[in-house]
């Protein structure tokens, strides 16, 4: 892939090849045009960028380390495994990079009220956090099922001053939270900024979330060159909507020697249908404002999903990933709930780093991948978030009362 190819996308209508676009009801259209216009202007505004960089450095705590997982490498017995430590960011996940960027946009556009949707709660916590800091009113939509699974994060959001709206429609998970956030947005479009947490949704969201998250890959690239004198051979990141993966991949897209692996939630196994892996086992369709790979039935109804991790439990994926899949630049694979749990336990025990259950999918796949590679190769896992929020889920699975 060439620089020129990359720069041409998304096109003027927000398309990545056949994917992306702006499939929304008319009421929202003008807001999306305004957001796109203002973002394009601010993107090249040195003052805006300087403020974003300053916040990333002093509030988020960037750059995050690139850590050589020596024991895990030795136990795996293959390629060197390195960890990009997004779990060390303020609030404990990569999500905060994007919420800082979008909250600055919200302030610039004069919006006083912010809404967000969340699955595992990491994006909700990150949004509530930046809203607290900037004095913005914050409403977070979360599926009833996810509220149950992620109660520590729900409490965190409330402590931060956010109002958490329990979503009881549909499957009561992330997709329904996104539906309700969009409904709120239509009703309050004049004074409300919608901070979308992933690289999906109508244009320009996939573009701006990717831009704000690309700091992950830029740092990884530089750190890798500084520490090892070369680029990594493979990057591995989990993919729900795909924001941590695109943030990691994007600055490497023109480095053809670097293999990219996005790891979807295989749930109980792709063959069971109980999973959340649209790129591995879905087909293109239209949902939540963009055309992308989806999990749907033969009549075009969106399918129910299953994943042990609330953050990956989503039937769609960002449109740029759909494009990367089709052109073959990135590989999309899946691991099951059980494999992810093994990955969680392994990293926790061997390196003393407890990954989020989302991240554990990437860990599980990277261990398999590294084992199949030569010892002089280098694999980087994006440790997108920390696992404290998932202790309750793990304890339940283990039959332990916490």
């Amino acid at each position: 892939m060439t620089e020129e190819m990359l720069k041409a996308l998304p096109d003027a209508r927000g398309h990545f090849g056949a994917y992306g676009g702006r499939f929304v009801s008319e009421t929202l259209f003008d807001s999306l045009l305004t957001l796109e216009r203002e973002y394009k202007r601010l993107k090249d505004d040195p003052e805006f960028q300087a403020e974003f960089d300053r916040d990333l450095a002093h509030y988020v705590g960037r750059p995050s380390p690139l850590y050589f997982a020596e024991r895990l490498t030795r136990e795996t017995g293959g390629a060197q495994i390195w960890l990009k430590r997004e779990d060390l960011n303020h609030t404990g996940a990569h999500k905060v990079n994007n919420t800082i960027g979008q909250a600055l946009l919200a302030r610039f556009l004069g919006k006083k009220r912010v809404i967000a949707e969340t699955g595992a709660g990491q994006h909700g916590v990150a949004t509530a956090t930046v809203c607290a800091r900037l004095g913005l009113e914050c409403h977070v939509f979360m599926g009833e099922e996810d509220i149950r699974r992620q109660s520590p994060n729900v409490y965190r959001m409330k402590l931060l001053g956010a109002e958490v709206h329990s979503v009881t429609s549909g499957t009561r998970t992330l997709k329904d939270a996104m539906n309700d956030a969009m409904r709120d947005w239509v009703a309050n479009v004049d004074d409300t900024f919608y901070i979308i947490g992933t690289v999906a949704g109508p244009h320009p969201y996939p573009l701006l979330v990717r831009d704000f998250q690309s700091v992950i890959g830029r740092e990884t690239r530089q750190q890798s060159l500084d520490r090892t004198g070369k680029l990594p051979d493979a990057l591995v990141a989990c993919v729900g909507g795909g924001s941590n993966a695109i943030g990691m991949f994007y600055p490497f897209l023109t480095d053809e020697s670097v293999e990219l692996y996005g790891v979807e939630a295989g749930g109980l196994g792709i063959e069971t249908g109980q999973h959340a892996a649209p790129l591995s086992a879905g087909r293109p369709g239209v949902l939540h404002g963009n055309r992308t790979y989806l999990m749907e039935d033969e009549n075009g109804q969106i399918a129910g999903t299953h994943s042990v991790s609330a953050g990956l439990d989503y039937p769609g994926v960002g449109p740029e990933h759909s494009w990367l899949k089709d052109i073959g630049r990135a590989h999309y694979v899946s691991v099951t709930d059980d494999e992810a749990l093994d990955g969680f336990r392994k990293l926790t025990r061997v390196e003393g780093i407890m990954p989020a259950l989302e991240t554990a999918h990437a860990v599980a796949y990277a261990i398999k991948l590294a084992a199949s590679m030569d010892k002089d190769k280098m694999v980087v896992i994006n440790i997108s978030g920390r696992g404290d929020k998932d202790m309750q889920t793990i304890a339940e699975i283990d039959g332990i009362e916490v």
Partner: protein
Amino acid sequence: MSRIEGVLKSLKGQGRKALIPYITAGDPHPDQTVDLMHTLVDAGADIIELGVPFSDPMADGPVIQRACERALKHGTSLRQVLAMVKTFREKDDATPVVLMGYLNPMEAMGQEKFADAAVDAGVDGILTVDLPPEEADEVAPLFTARNLDAIFLLAPTTTDDRIRAISEHSSGYVYYVSFKGVTGAGKIDVDEVAAKVAHIHELTALPVAVGFGIRDAATASAVGRVSDGVIVGSVLVDTIARNQADPDQLKRALTDLLHPMREALDSLAS
């Protein structure tokens, strides 16, 4: 001339306003939909908007979302909805039917196959809530070639440039969404609607039908005064939900709701 255009022209010639009820196909049960469509016509409907149920109706409120859930529980598919229209046409060859829904079920069928099947069933227009004209360049020519009217939404937030552009892509009528919000929410501000509709009339020659927030004869009459037609949705669907146990009672309830609106609209003509 399309069936929709014909009906709207004829109404205009009589100085009358179009009454356009919406129901979700398959709600409360797929077996009842055709019967309910005839009931709506008997009660005074000029055009029927028939909702295609979708699992994620983002632009709709809880009333219509629950209708979609009821319909999907009985397995109502787009294929079945088209079959319902075909059955409806056996007894009614005059009343235009507009399919209203979301893009994904239509894409899943295949756009060309869908367009063919819609014409074959006797559908007159397609309104896809999450398809702005900017994304319609593939499907719009398929509709045009088959004389299917493409109906697009206008909203309070739509700028003048977009009103012109959307109208150029539309045929039949344009659907003005009376307030910022989802179906079944909020209260209509008739003065605001009147001003905006008058402005839309300056920018397009197409008839303007107004939906969202019309729930009784009084609001129908107030909105009918300033528009070419009124679209009534959530209040009908709510009536269906409340009377789903008794099909005969349900028909009576729908008639009782729609008939006064018909009379109120017609009293504007005299």
